[in-house]
């Protein structure tokens, strides 16, 4: 019937989206922006029945365009992200997190840290509980940045001690960062997942402060807890730690067993084979 071919709002916007999609795939940022300008009025319609609503579309497409567009300045990007944060409370933390990633990619560590802190203090009724996962991630990344700060302080301290003097203030700051980082890093690696960088940093902290038992426990959990997804790196980290600790060949070999199963082509297999040959098994 003729009604199927009627051009209406919905069809018009669907067509608009497909033009945006084509433009994005061909990296035609200006053209994508042109069509996005026409798409944004979808925000004024109720799409609550749709799986992905216009506000999410606009957030994702808009950030792509602004990120790649040559005229773009971080100021515009930041301004846009702030607007996106107000668009959907259900997505608030996600948007914050992605914004932080962009800031980090752009080298703006301080701004990223500020945003993380701000996001951490966000409360919104039952949404806070619903977005618990994102909150944990935010805390984890803040922990990571705290670790970076700690690392910086540590290096300063080491340089100073080489030159023959020590600054108590630096040391205190360093310890402060350690405490902040440790708390958050410890939390995130409890959740089953892939947390390579977090684990690495946490173990580094533990080793520096001499808590080898905790480090060993963390690494064992990460490698052997069946709730965690199979992760070759977990075994690599454990092996490297044990090696640093000067463990026996026997324990070193056993730590590489699972790695051998899941990634037989791993470069550590050379060491594995060498050790096996030496132990004549």
């Amino acid at each position, binding site marked *: *019937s*003729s*009604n199927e*071919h*009627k*051009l*209406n*709002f*919905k069809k*018009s916007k669907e*067509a*608009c989206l*497909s*033009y945006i999609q084509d433009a994005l795939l061909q990296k035609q*940022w*200006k*053209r994508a*922006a*042109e*069509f*996005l*300008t*026409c798409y*944004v*009025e979808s*925000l*004024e*319609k*109720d*799409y*609550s*029945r749709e799986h992905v609503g216009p506000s999410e579309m*606009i957030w994702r497409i*808009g950030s792509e*365009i*602004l990120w790649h*567009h040559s*005229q*773009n300045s971080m100021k*515009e990007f930041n*301004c*846009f992200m702030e*607007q996106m944060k*107000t*668009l959907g409370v259900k997505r608030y933390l996600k948007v914050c997190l992605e914004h932080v990633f962009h800031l980090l990619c752009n080298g703006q560590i301080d701004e990223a840290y500020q945003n993380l802190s701000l996001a951490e203090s966000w409360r919104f009724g039952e949404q806070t509980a619903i977005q618990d996962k994102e909150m944990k991630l935010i805390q984890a990344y803040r922990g990571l940045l705290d670790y970076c700060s700690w690392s910086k302080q540590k290096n300063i301290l080491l340089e100073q001690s080489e030159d023959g003097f020590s600054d108590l203030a630096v040391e205190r700051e360093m310890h402060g960062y350690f405490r902040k980082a440790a708390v958050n890093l410890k939390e995130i690696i409890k959740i089953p997942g892939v947390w390579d960088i977090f684990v690495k940093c946490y173990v580094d902290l533990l080793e520096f402060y001499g808590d080898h038992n905790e480090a060993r426990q963390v690494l064992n959990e990460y490698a052997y807890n069946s709730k965690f997804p199979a992760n070759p790196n977990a075994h690599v980290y454990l092996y490297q730690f044990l090696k640093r600790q000067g463990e026996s060949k026997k324990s070193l070999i056993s730590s590489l067993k699972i790695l051998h199963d899941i990634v037989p082509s791993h470069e550590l297999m050379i060491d594995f084979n060498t050790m096996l040959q030496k132990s004549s098994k």
Partner: protein
Amino acid sequence: RDFNERCAQCSEVNWGLTDGGRFYCRSCHNVTERTREVVNTDFITNSRVQTISKGLRKQEKNDGGSEWYICEGFQLVLKKQVEALEALGVCPQMKDEILCNFWRCYLQKSKQAYCKRPAGEAVKALSVCESSTDVDSDPERPSLLHLLSLSESEGELQTDCSFASSVSKVSESTSVYSGSVDGSLYLMKNQKEKLRMTMPMTLSFCYMALLWVREPITLSELLRFVVEGHIPYLNVFQHFPEKMKLCGLDLKIFCVESWPVYEEVFNKMHELAAFLDLPRFPDITESCFLHPDMLCMKYLMEANLPDELHNWTCRVVKKIGIGEVDFLTLMPGNNSTRKVKYDVLAVAVIVVVLKLLFLLDDHYECFSVISFISSQTKVYIFYSGGPYFEFKKWYEVVKHSLDVEQKKLDEDRAKYLWRCEKPLFYSVKNKSKVLKRRQMVVNLQNQFGRLSGSVQRAEKPNPSSFQLSWSEENTDGSCFHGHSLKGILQEKCGLLKAMNPDYWLCTVKLCNEKLCGHLAHYKDVEFPQSYHFVLGLFSFLLRVQPSYIHDEVCMIEHKLFNKKLCKKLKYNTVLRK
């Protein structure tokens, strides 16, 4: 408005206002010296408001608005539309005499004004709504939620979920439901018998008036002008005066979110003409623009086809009698005669002529002797007058232009901006939310508009009758108007005949239009590419579906080959699989 004196000349009480603000008698056009004190032309265009019961109308409501009825809104819409038509060059009588009278007649017939009843109905609606504390308590009266979910031709607005939930809590005044007095009443009643006014119907009114005056604007052109923005339709409510607050159910009535379709407007127009008991429309004669001979000429030019084809279209028109005055002129209420779609009819005739001369079976038109020779020599074959017409070359040239235009059209369609500055809200409760959203949209539009370098929307193209134009001055030979058909014609007994002896019917049997709504069913894969292309070309020009034109082609073919069809069931048809 309260001028109730009898006219000095004819003793009637039928006053109107001149441009100078003086009262004049509509029956005898006697102008008086009395002038109107208060100037408030925005609110009501004609002085018909006196018929709405004054007792019910409160001047000021608390939000600065005053009471208004849905039909007043539509009246404003029509006014804007006809003014736009005037700006396009339509004769001024259309507004003051034709459309005005049609509208008044409609109001009278649908009992919305000019009669004694309307006030009573409105009172009933108000009291019913006010007395019930729970909207859903009355099982017979459809709940507001049901009303909101009614989706008619233009009422496709998705309900604002927050509004739906807030409605059930509302129990106070009816003003929350709609800004107008009778908004909910309008949607509630089954007004099929009374032909409820809708936005697409405003265009039916316009078309009806245009037809009455026999203006050279076809329905497809009218609809195209609407889409191009030359005739207000989409957000015309933004021209309502401040006092006419639009909210709630009014939105469902006045806010459109789809472009009207030819078939819809056309059918409604005929319904309307019958409803108004209109007499026979002014005759459509051979000198009229809407006559198939004239329209064929226009479309032949626009399709870049040779002028010589016009002789053939005229011959077909004459043979099947579709050029007769009685066939073309509209006789409202007469269901036995087929309703004439002038533009679709004309292009269908052209398609039939092309089929007669070129067969359009993907072989004959491509491999004619002429094209064979010219493809070898890569020049046009000339005779003493000019080049021979070659279908294949024509196809290439036109297809190229058509593709460009179609691409532009598709992009424009994707870029339509449906919303306007005037905010719409279902209820006062979500007003701030709506305004905030609007602000965000504007911000985003500015931001990304700057990025794309096009902050301002491109200016509307000037309205033009021709979408494709071909100039004979072009040296690239892309204009085929002057080409000759000699290559495909032969002379026999002093008459020119097509060399092509064959013809294939689009369909052997016509469907029953009343049962399935169509005369035939068009699937492009079942027909030759050339035919599909030709349909596509005219479909683009008229902005209708190819199947719509296909139906008309079938109709013409059956008229043309009527005798042969009756005689032999298996005529010389080459049916596509």
